[in-house]
C-alpha cells in the first residue's frame, strides 16, 4: 500500500496486497502504545488516534517505553528512534523476539541507516518525520492486520452503486461512463468510504507511483470523476478536504 517497497518483507507485501482489495475500517477496540518524547507529537497522536477509536497509552522516555512494551498487551507500538534514556532501536532489540507486537518506527534525523537498522532489529514499518497523520493511520491499519478482510463485490453509498466485479458504477439509474483510471479512483475512495484518503495514497493505489510527483494528476482526475459522478441536482458524494485529500460519503 505505502511506498516502502524494497525494505519490506514478503509477508508485509502480501498483507498490503490484501489490504488493497478489501474494505479498510479500524477495529475500535485496538490498544496502541506511543513511545515518543516530543510532547506536541504525543498530544496530537493521542488525540488523533483516540478520535479514530484506538485506546492510546504513551511513554515519554525509553525506559518507561520498554517497561510498558514488555508488560502491556498492545496491538501496535509506535516507536520513536531518538529517545531519552534508551533509544528506539535498543528497545526494539530487547523486546524482540519475545514480544511480537507490530512496531511502527518514527525516524527524524538523517535516518537512512537507522531505518535499515530498525528493520534488522525487527520493526514492521517506518515513517520519516515529517509525516502526515493520514499516512500514519494507513500504515497502522496495515501492520495491525486487524483490518476487516471483507471481500466486497458491491458498494452502495447513497444512490451510488458500484459493481466491482463487472467494473460498472451507477448513480440511481444513471450509468456512469468512467475510464479505467476514474473507476480505479472511485474504487479506492469507495473502499475507504467515510475516511479521508490522501493524494499520496491515491497516487500509489491507482497508478502504483511511490514518489512526490509534484503534478496535478490526482486533482485533475478527481475533477473529471466528480463531473461524471455528481450532477447539479444530485447530493454531493465526493468531498475535498483541503490540504489532506478526498473523502467519499453521503453527508446529511
Amino acid at each position, binding site marked *: 500500500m505505502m511506498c516502502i*517497497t*524494497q*525494505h519490506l518483507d514478503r509477508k508485509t507485501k502480501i498483507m498490503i496486497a490484501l489490504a488493497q482489495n478489501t474494505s479498510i475500517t479500524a477495529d475500535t477496540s485496538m490498544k496502541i502504545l506511543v513511545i515518543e518524547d516530543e510532547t506536541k507529537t504525543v498530544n496530537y497522536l493521542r488525540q488523533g488516534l483516540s478520535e479514530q477509536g484506538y485506546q492510546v497509552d504513551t511513554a515519554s522516555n525509553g525506559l518507561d517505553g520498554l517497561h510498558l512494551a514488555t508488560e502491556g498487551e498492545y496491538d501496535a507500538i509506535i516507536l520513536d528512534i531518538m529517545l531519552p534514556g534508551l533509544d528506539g532501536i535498543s528497545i526494539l532489540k530487547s523486546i524482540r523476539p519475545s514480544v511480537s507486537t507490530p512496531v511502527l518506527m518514527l525516524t527524524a534525523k*538523517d535516518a*537512512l*541507516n537507522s531505518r*535499515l537498522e530498525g528493520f534488522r532489529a525487527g520493526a514492521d514499518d517506518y515513517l*520519516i518525520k*515529517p509525516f*502526515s497523520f493520514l499516512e500514519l493511520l494507513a500504515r497502522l491499519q496495515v501492520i495491525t492486520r486487524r483490518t476487516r478482510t471483507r471481500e466486497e463485490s458491491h458498494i452502495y453509498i447513497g444512490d451510488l452503486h458500484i459493481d466491482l466485479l463487472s467494473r460498472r458504477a451507477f448513480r440511481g439509474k444513471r450509468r456512469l461512463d468512467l475510464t479505467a*483510471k476514474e473507476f480505479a479512483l472511485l474504487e479506492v475512495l469507495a473502499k475507504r468510504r467515510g475516511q479521508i484518503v490522501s493524494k499520496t495514497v491515491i497516487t500509489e493505489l491507482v*497508478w502504483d*507511483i*511511490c*514518489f*512526490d*510527483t*509534484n*503534478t*496535478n*494528476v490526482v486533482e*485533475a*482526475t478527481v475533477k*473529471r470523476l466528480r463531473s461524471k459522478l455528481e450532477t447539479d441536482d444530485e447530493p454531493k458524494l465526493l468531498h475535498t*478536504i*483541503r*490540504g*489532506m485529500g478526498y473523502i467519499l460519503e453521503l453527508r446529511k
Partner: protein
Amino acid sequence: MIKIQKPRSIAQKLALSYAVSAALILSVTVIGLAYFETSEIDNYQTAEIKNRFSLFSYDVVKAENYDDWLALKNKYKKIIQEDGRRIYIRVDSADERYRINAPFQINPDHLDKHHGFSKQNIDGNFFRIYSKKFPAAGERPEVILSLALDAYYYEDFDQWLDLAFDVFLLISASTIALLGMFIAKRNLQPVDVLSAHAQSISVSNLSQRLPNENLPTELQGLINSFNGVLDRLENSYRRQAAFNSDVAHELRTPVGNLIGQTEVALSKPRSSEELEEIMQSNLEELERLRSIISDMLFLSHADQGEIALNLESCSLADEVRQTADFLEILLEENRNTLKIKGDARVPVESSLLKRVLTNLIGNAIEHGKPDSPITVEIKEADAFAEVTVINFGNDIPEADLPNLFERFYRVSKDRQNSGSNHGLGLSIVKAIILLHRGDVFASSSNGIIKIGFRLPLSNPVSGEEN
C-alpha cells in the same frame, strides 16, 4: 623487519644518479686510456731495448775468435750506466769461456715464447730483458745474449698515471654530484614556491589558484590538474553555500505565511468555519514544506551515494509509456500528444527512472505550448542510451541552460507558479541519473526545447542488497 622510510629528496636522488652514471662512464674511459697508455709504453720500451740490443749484438756477431771475445767481455763486464739507467749484459754459452755473468737468470726454453722478451725483478728494481740466440761462428760457440734494461722509470710513471686517473675519477664524480645537486635544487625551486602558495589556500580564499606562469612544462600539467581540483571544490563549495541560503529562503516564505496567518487568526475570536479554513490553508503550506524537506533529504542521500540501486534491465519505451499513462489526463487537458520514438534496454531502478520521466514530461506539459506534440526520443549511441524529451515552448535563454539542473534554479525569477513546483525537480532528475552513472543535457533553439539524459547500456553500479 621494520624498514624506515626516509623522506626522499628528488634533488638528492638526481645528484646521486648523476654521480653514479658519471663514475661509470669515466671509469670505462679511464680503463680504456690506461690500457692504451700501458700498451704504448710497452711498445716504446720494446723499441728502446731492441735498439740498444742491436749495438751489442753487432759486437757479438763480429767476435768470431777468443781474443775478440775477451775484448768484448771486458767491455761489457761492468754494469753499464747510461742516463742514470742501469743495463746488465749476460751471455750464456755451453763453453764457460764465452760467458758473461749478470745478477739475473735466463730460461733458454722460454726464449721463443715472448719473442725473447721477459721481465724480472733485480735487486728490488724492475727490469725488462731481451734475449737472442746467436749461432756459432768461427771459434765462438752458440751464445745467448741477454740485455736487462732498468724499467723503473716507466713503472713509476705508470703507477703515477693510474693514481692520477683515480683521483681524476673521484674529483669528477663528486663535482658532477655536487653540480647535479645544485642544478636539481635550482630547477625544483618552483615546487617550493608552489607548496607555499598551496598552503595559503583556504576556505576564505578558495578562488586563489596556483600560479602557472614561468613553470617548467613538467609541472604545468600537475598545476593545471591541481587548479582543476580547486575549481571543482570551489564550485561545489559555493553551490553548497548557495544551496543552504536557497533552502533558508525557500522555507522562509511558507513559514512566514504560517506565522502571519495564524497570528491574524488568533488575534480575534473566530467562528469554527473560519478557523477550519485557516487551518486548511496552513496545512497546504505545511505540505509544501514537507515536500521540500523530503526532496532535500532525497538529494542529500543521493549526493552521499546512500541510495541503494536495485538495477533491473528495463525497456525505456515501456517506462515512458507507463509514465505517459500516469500523466495522460494532463496531456489531454493541455491537448498535447506524446510520441515515443525508438527504444533501448538499460539496467535501471524502475521507480527512480519513473520519477525522472515524470519530472521531465511533467515539465514539458507544464512549460510547453498547448496543442503541440511532445516527443520522447530514445536511441543508442556508443555505450549509452539517450533519452530526449522534445517539446515546443518559449526558448530557455542560453545563459540559463547550464544552470537548469541546479537546485532551486528557476528560469523566470518571479516565484509565481511555485506552489507545486519548488525548483528541485530537475536537480532530482540529475541526481538520479548521476546515481546511475549517466549524465543530463539540455538545449533550446527556435522554440524547440530538448531536455534529456544518457544512461550506460551496461551499468557499472551493482545493485546493493541490504
